[in-house]
């Protein structure tokens, strides 16, 4: 792959990536979220999300010949296979049917000779034979006619791999975060399988954030950061500390705010003990954390490790268990109302999905939760209520000015606003509840660079002006380090540790990768 680049509507996610792969080589790709790993693989595999948004830059050469990959079918024909992070398996089908999906072996019959190839009979016996061969290659003894539904996750993954192996022209196999869902022993099996596959001459691209796995199986390693290739190393030339450091990188970002050293002196205002949250993709298994009054604390970590689940769980958006005490009162979990009644507020990471009524006006969005939970902005007529539109308008005007929301007016529909301004509307809505603690998830996601700073500035001002305690969850480490007093890192659903913004990149990198640090 040469000089690969990609832009999404003016947002550059990948630039000048160069990668070379030899037959039988195992090549690792590491990077944080948003570094561009998935985008790179989507390009290689011809996913429609690339082509419907303008295609890619650069050239891809397979076996010396230049290739145009415009669809997964093209990629497959060139011998590129992919084991996706989200399994492409049909649960209602058997293993054989999944392995042979759209590549079924057929025999012609009377009808197909007249009408067309699509009417060929399926040769189930031959298909089962092939499936058996592929499974045996991976040392799996399971019945090839078993249904996928109900199989343990590790097995399903191996079926995914078997499907790719069955493709006779396979030259390159891409593994996208394969061990994320596996137990340790299953992960070891996988790494062994990878060695076997590469011994057959098939090259492997292994994407992961687990540095020790990379060091175990890979020969060469590429580190991506912010869409650029920051390093390429041979395994013998590096170690996990260097990789961690390269992954995180010291970004010379503006330090917006000097972190306070004295936050932990006061007693904690929010104590979280043994919190576990069932949020699909961001499970929290056991988090305990103390948060102090008036601080800005960051919750960081890689995607899927659980950092987003913490706030969502406490605010009742997803099923949760554990003990949470705020300002002396026990917070009932699985109950958004309770959390809000206790002066907690939340700005969700899913701005468009959960945070806004996109087809409603700015003022209606801002006032909404306050209306429902605190009865504000309502005129009462006995048992009936009526919206006090004047009061809503007044408040909206005030918030637009205070937060500098760029719009045509309080009646404008939020769908029409830019990301940054939408975010401000969400913050305004949360502020209307007059909370004592504000959870903010991914405050600057999807916002252009200029607006990012404004949103962060707003949060800082709120903390300083109103004494608001802010808990900021973000995948952008740099912004956490520029604004927070302390940063907690969540890895594999638990708190891996709490760092200061001034701690080294290596510290952060290792903690996020889940590695044990020598000087922990």
């Amino acid at each position, binding site marked *: 792959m040469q000089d690969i680049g990609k832009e999404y509507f003016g947002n550059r996610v990948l630039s000048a990536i160069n990668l070379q792969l030899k037959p039988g080589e195992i090549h690792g790709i590491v990077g944080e979220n948003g570094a561009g790993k998935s985008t790179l693989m989507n390009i290689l595999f011809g996913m429609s999300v690339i082509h419907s948004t303008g295609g890619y830059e650069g050239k891809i050469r397979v076996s010396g010949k230049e290739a145009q990959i415009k669809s997964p079918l093209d990629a497959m024909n060139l011998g590129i296979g992919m084991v996706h992070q989200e399994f492409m398996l049909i649960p209602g089908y058997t293993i054989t049917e999944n392995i042979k999906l759209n590549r079924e072996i057929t025999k012609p019959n009377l009808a197909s000779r007249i009408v067309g190839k699509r009417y060929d009979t399926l040769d189930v016996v031959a298909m089962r034979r092939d499936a058996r061969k592929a499974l045996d290659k991976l040392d799996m003894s399971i019945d090839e006619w078993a249904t996928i539904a109900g199989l343990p996750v590790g097995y399903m993954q191996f079926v995914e791999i078997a499907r790719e192996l069955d493709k006779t022209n396979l030259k390159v196999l891409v593994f996208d975060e394969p061990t994320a869902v596996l137990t340790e022993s299953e992960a070891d099996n996988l790494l062994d399988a990878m060695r076997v596959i590469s011994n057959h001459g098939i090259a492997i691209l292994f994407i992961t954030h687990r540095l020790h796995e990379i060091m175990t199986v890979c020969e060469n390693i590429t580190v991506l950061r912010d869409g650029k290739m920051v390093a390429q190393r041979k395994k013998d030339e590096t170690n996990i500390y260097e990789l961690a450091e390269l992954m995180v990188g010291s970004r010379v970002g503006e330090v917006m705010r000097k972190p306070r050293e004295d936050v932990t002196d006061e007693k904690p205002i929010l104590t979280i003990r043994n919190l576990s949250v069932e949020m699909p993709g961001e499970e929290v298994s056991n988090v305990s954390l103390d948060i102090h009054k008036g601080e800005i604390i960051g919750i960081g970590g890689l995607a899927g490790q659980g950092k987003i689940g913490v706030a969502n769980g406490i605010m009742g958006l997803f099923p949760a268990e554990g003990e949470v005490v705020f300002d002396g009162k026990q917070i009932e979990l699985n109950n*958004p*109302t309770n959390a809000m009644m206790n002066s907690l507020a939340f700005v969700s990471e899913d701005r468009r999905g959960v945070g806004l009524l*996109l087809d409603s006006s700015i003022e209606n969005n801002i006032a909404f939760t306050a209306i*429902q939970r605190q009865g504000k902005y*309502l005129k009462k007529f006995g048992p009936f209520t*009526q*919206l006090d539109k004047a009061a809503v308008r007044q408040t909206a005007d005030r918030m637009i000015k205070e937060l500098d929301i760029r719009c045509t007016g309080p009646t404008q529909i939020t769908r*029409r606003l830019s990301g940054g301004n939408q975010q401000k509307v969400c913050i305004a809505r949360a502020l209307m509840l007059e909370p004592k603690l504000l959870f903010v998830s991914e405050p600057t996601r999807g916002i252009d660079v200029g607006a990012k700073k404004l949103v962060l500035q707003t949060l800082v001002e709120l903390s300083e002006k109103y004494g608001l305690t802010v808990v900021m969850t973000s995948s952008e480490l740099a912004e956490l380090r520029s604004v927070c007093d302390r940063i907690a890192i969540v890895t594999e659903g638990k708190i891996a540790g709490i760092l200061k913004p001034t701690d080294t990149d290596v510290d952060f990198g290792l903690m996020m990768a889940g590695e044990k640090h020598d000087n922990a």
Partner: protein
Amino acid sequence: MITPDVRRFGAVKDTLKSFGLPRIIIVVFLVLLWAISMFLEIPFPQLLSDTLVRWGMNGVLVLAMMPSILAGTGLYFGLPIGIICGLLGGVIAIELNLVGITAFFAAIAFSIPFAFVLGWVYGFMLNRIKGSEMTVATYVGFSIVSLMCIFWSMAPFKSPAMAWPIGRGLRVTISLADRYEKVLNNFLSFNIFGIMIPTGLILFLLLMCLIVVLFFNTKTGIALKAGGENPRFAQSSGINVDTMRIVGTIFSTVLGAIGILVYSQSFGFIQLYTAPLFMGFLAAAAILIGGASIKKATILHVLLGTFLFQGLLVVALPVANKVATLGSLAEISRIIVSNGVILYALAQHSGD
């Protein structure tokens, strides 16, 4: 940052899109037919009078679509259920031998408890089948109409105005001539330029619209709308979306009950048995013509849509009769137009 130009263009595009292709076609078609009718010397004031009457008559039934749409349960194809509640109320009022405006309001009063209960049960069921509300609603509606046919046939009512002279059961059509026929229509009605304005009817329709508007400005109403627009948003603000959906269904059912009584008093007959079967589709078509979609509806859509749809039906018949003696053209065009409009709405990729 969105520049002013982009924003303005976006707004214009929004308006055109929200006006909708079918609405434009219908408006054009209607105006065309009006022009043709005048050319064919069909008395226009008469057309307009009929249109106004049918507008008022059908308006509340179309209004019944709104709560269901806003709550996120789609087009209220379960309208037959609300209608049946209204019919039950009407029949009880006749059995008690009430007359005049008292009878009308009594009928409404009797039907409301039924509407509450059935609406609640129905809403409960809809919550169990999220995503398939419209399909299941259609068949449940048909099924209940058939069940009620059995009931009407065996009903213990004795009033000679309704029952078969021999044997049990109620007649198919029951006349309201001596009771409350056109009681709303004639209230304060007046003539202007030869056009008869059924003031009472229109006032009642507007009153119902006002009640709906007021409701959606209450705390519950606002919560209901949010639940329909973005359930996850509503849930994160502590709203029980399922409860809101049931409230919406009950409201739609009640409006359906009131609607059929308004319709019947204007029509002059109460129609039992299989009459309610397809009324849901006609009401749905009307609100869609008014510009609503499966997810969004306003009072304007209700009023405008009913007017356009009924206007079309009123003018089509005499025009068709003059052009060629095609009696059933009105019925056929009603089928084609109403279902065509619903099809257009369904094909809008509005996603499930």
